C-alpha cells in the first residue's frame, strides 16, 4: 500500500516535472523572441549578454568564446544591484551604466583600454579607486599624447604633480572629461556641461559666467557661445596672472578676437566674473546696480500701493459688481 502510494507520488512528481520543463521551454522561447525583436528594434543598444539569461544556460558556453571583454565585464558591472561598496578608501560605485558607456565617445573601446592590467581572468588584479585615479592619466596618454603633453605643462598638471594638499585635489583628465560616459567635446551637451565641470572647483566663477550673455546663450542651446575653455584654454590652462595665459595682459585681445574680430583693447576689459551687487565690483557697476535696485523698489512701491488702494476703493464702492454705477 505504501509502495503504491510512493509510486503514485513518483508519477505525480514526474508529471509535474515535465509540466515545469514544458513551461520553462515555452518561457525560454517567448523570452528569446522578445529579446531578439528588441535587439532588432534597437540595434544601437547592446543588450545584456546571454550569460545573464538563466533560463537558457545551455547557450552560454557556446557564446562565451565570441564575447568581447567589455561584454564580459558588463555582465556583472551593468547590474544596478552591484551598487556601492565600502573599502578603506571610502565608497566606490561598481555599477556602470551600460547604455551610457556604449553611447560615449569611448563606447567601442574594451574596458582594459583604460583599466590597464586587467586580463581575461576577472578580478585577477582588483584595485581600489585610488589606483584607477593614479593610473588614469597614463591610460589616457596612450591615445591622447598631445593633449597630455599640454596638460603636463598646465597649471592643473603642475599642481597634480606637486604632492601638496592642493595637488591631490588638482584635476586629472577624468575630472573634466568624465569616465564611462565620456563625451565628444564638440557636442552641445558637453559645452553646456563645461561650466559645471569647472564649477566643481571654481564655484563662484560658474555663477558669474552663467549670468553673462555667453552663459545664458549656451544654457539655451546656442552652440557658438563661448564657455570657460574658449577664454581660459583647456589642456594648457594657466592662471590669468601667468604671462603665458590666454587671458594675460598680452594675450587677452587675441583671445577675444577669436570670436569678435573687431574687438579692441577696451572691449577686452569687459568683466565676465563680476557680481554687480557685490562691493568688489567696479564702483560704476556697483552704483548702477544699487541705483536700479532702489529704483525698482521705489517705483513698484509707489505704483503697487496706488493700484491696491484704487482696487480697494473700487471694491468698497461695489463698482466691480454693478452695485454702484455712480462713478
Amino acid at each position, binding site marked *: 500500500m505504501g509502495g503504491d502510494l510512493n509510486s503514485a507520488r513518483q508519477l505525480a512528481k514526474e508529471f509535474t516535472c515535465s509540466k515545469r520543463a514544458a513551461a520553462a521551454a515555452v518561457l525560454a522561447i517567448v523570452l528569446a523572441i522578445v529579446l531578439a525583436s528588441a535587439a532588432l528594434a534597437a540595434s544601437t543598444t547592446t543588450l545584456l549578454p546571454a550569460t545573464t539569461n538563466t533560463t537558457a544556460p545551455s547557450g552560454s558556453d557556446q557564446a562565451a568564446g565570441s564575447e568581447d571583454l567589455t561584454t564580459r565585464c558588463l555582465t556583472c558591472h551593468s547590474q544596478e544591484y552591484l551598487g556601492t561598496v565600502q573599502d578603506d578608501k571610502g565608497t566606490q560605485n561598481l555599477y556602470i551604466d551600460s547604455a551610457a558607456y556604449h553611447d560615449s565617445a569611448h563606447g567601442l573601446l574594451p574596458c582594459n583600454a583604460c583599466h590597464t592590467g586587467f586580463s581575461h581572468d576577472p578580478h585577477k588584479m582588483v584595485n581600489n579607486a585610488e589606483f584607477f585615479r593614479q593610473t588614469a592619466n597614463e591610460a589616457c596618454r596612450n591615445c591622447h599624447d598631445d593633449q597630455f603633453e599640454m596638460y603636463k605643462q598646465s597649471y592643473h598638471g603642475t599642481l597634480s604633480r606637486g604632492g601638496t594638499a592642493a595637488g591631490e585635489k588638482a584635476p586629472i583628465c577624468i575630472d573634466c572629461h568624465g569616465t564611462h560616459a565620456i563625451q565628444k567635446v564638440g557636442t552641445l551637451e558637453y559645452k553646456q556641461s563645461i561650466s559645471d565641470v569647472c564649477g566643481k572647483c571654481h564655484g563662484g566663477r560658474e555663477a558669474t559666467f*552663467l549670468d553673462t550673455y555667453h552663459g545664458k546663450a549656451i544654457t*539655451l*542651446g546656442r552652440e557658438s557661445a563661448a564657455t570657460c575653455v574658449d577664454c581660459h584654454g583647456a589642456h594648457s590652462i594657466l592662471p590669468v596672472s601667468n604671462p603665458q595665459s590666454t587671458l594675460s595682459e598680452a594675450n587677452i585681445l587675441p583671445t577675444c578676437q577669436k570670436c569678435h574680430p573687431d574687438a579692441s583693447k577696451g572691449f577686452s576689459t569687459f568683466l565676465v566674473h563680476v557680481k554687480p551687487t557685490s562691493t568688489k*565690483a567696479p564702483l560704476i557697476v556697483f552704483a*548702477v546696480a544699487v541705483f536700479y535696485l532702489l*529704483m525698482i523698489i521705489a517705483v513698484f512701491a509707489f505704483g503697487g500701493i496706488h493700484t491696491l488702494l484704487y482696487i480697494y*476703493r473700487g471694491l*468698497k464702492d461695489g463698482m466691480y459688481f454693478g452695485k454702484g454705477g455712480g*462713478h
Partner: protein
Amino acid sequence: MAARKDYYVRFSVYHRLSHFVMMVTFIGCTLTGPPLKYSYDFWAQSMMSFWGGVHNAGLVHRVMAGFMVADFLIHALYLLYWVFIRRANVFGPDSIMFRKKDIADLVGMIKWFFDRGDRPKFERYTFWEKFDWFAVFWGIAMIGTSGFALWFPTVTGQLVSGIFLNVARIIHGDEAILAIGWILFVHLYNSHLRMNVFPMDPVIFTGKMPLEHLKHDKAAWYERLVREGKIQPEAE
C-alpha cells in the same frame, strides 16, 4: 442745435497709431528678451524653442526694438513741433509735463481712497498717466541706449571701457523689469481695470471717450471743454 455727441475724441489718429506700435513692439521685446535673462528658469527653454533659438529670438528682439525706437524718435519730433512751432504751453493743463497740481491730486487721491474727500478733479492727464508717459520716455532712452551698446559690443569697446558693457547689461535688464512690471501691474490696471471702465477701456484704440467717463475721470478737463465750447453742456 445738433444732438449732443456722447463721446469726446481724446486721442488723435497719431496718438493711437503711436501707442499701437509701442504696444506691439513692447510685447515683442517682452516675449523675446526675458527668456534670455532668465535662461536658468524652466519656462525660458520652451519660450526660446518657440522662437527657434537664441539667435532667432535676438533677431525678433532687434526688429521690434528698431520699430520702438523709431516710434520714440517720431514722438520726440512731435513734441518739438508742439513746443517750438505750435508754442504749446508746456506747463499748461493740456501738457503731459508734471506740475504743482499733480502733488495736490496725489494727496487728493489718497484721501479719496479712504473716503476722506472727493475724487480730485483731474485735468487732461492724471499724474499716473504722466508717470506712464515719463516711464516710457525715460525707459526707451535707457533701454535703447544700453540695447545698442550690447548689440554692437565691439563698437562700444572702441568708444568706452568694456566695463560699460557690464553697466549696459544691468541697465537693460533692470529697466526691462521696471517696464514689464509697471505695464503688467500698474498701467494695465489703471487703464483697463479701473472701476468705471472694467474690464477694458477701448479709448486708446478708438480715441473716443464716453462723456460720462470723461466727466468722472477728468472733471476739470470736462468742465474746461464745456467752457471752451468743445463739448455741449448737458441738457438740464
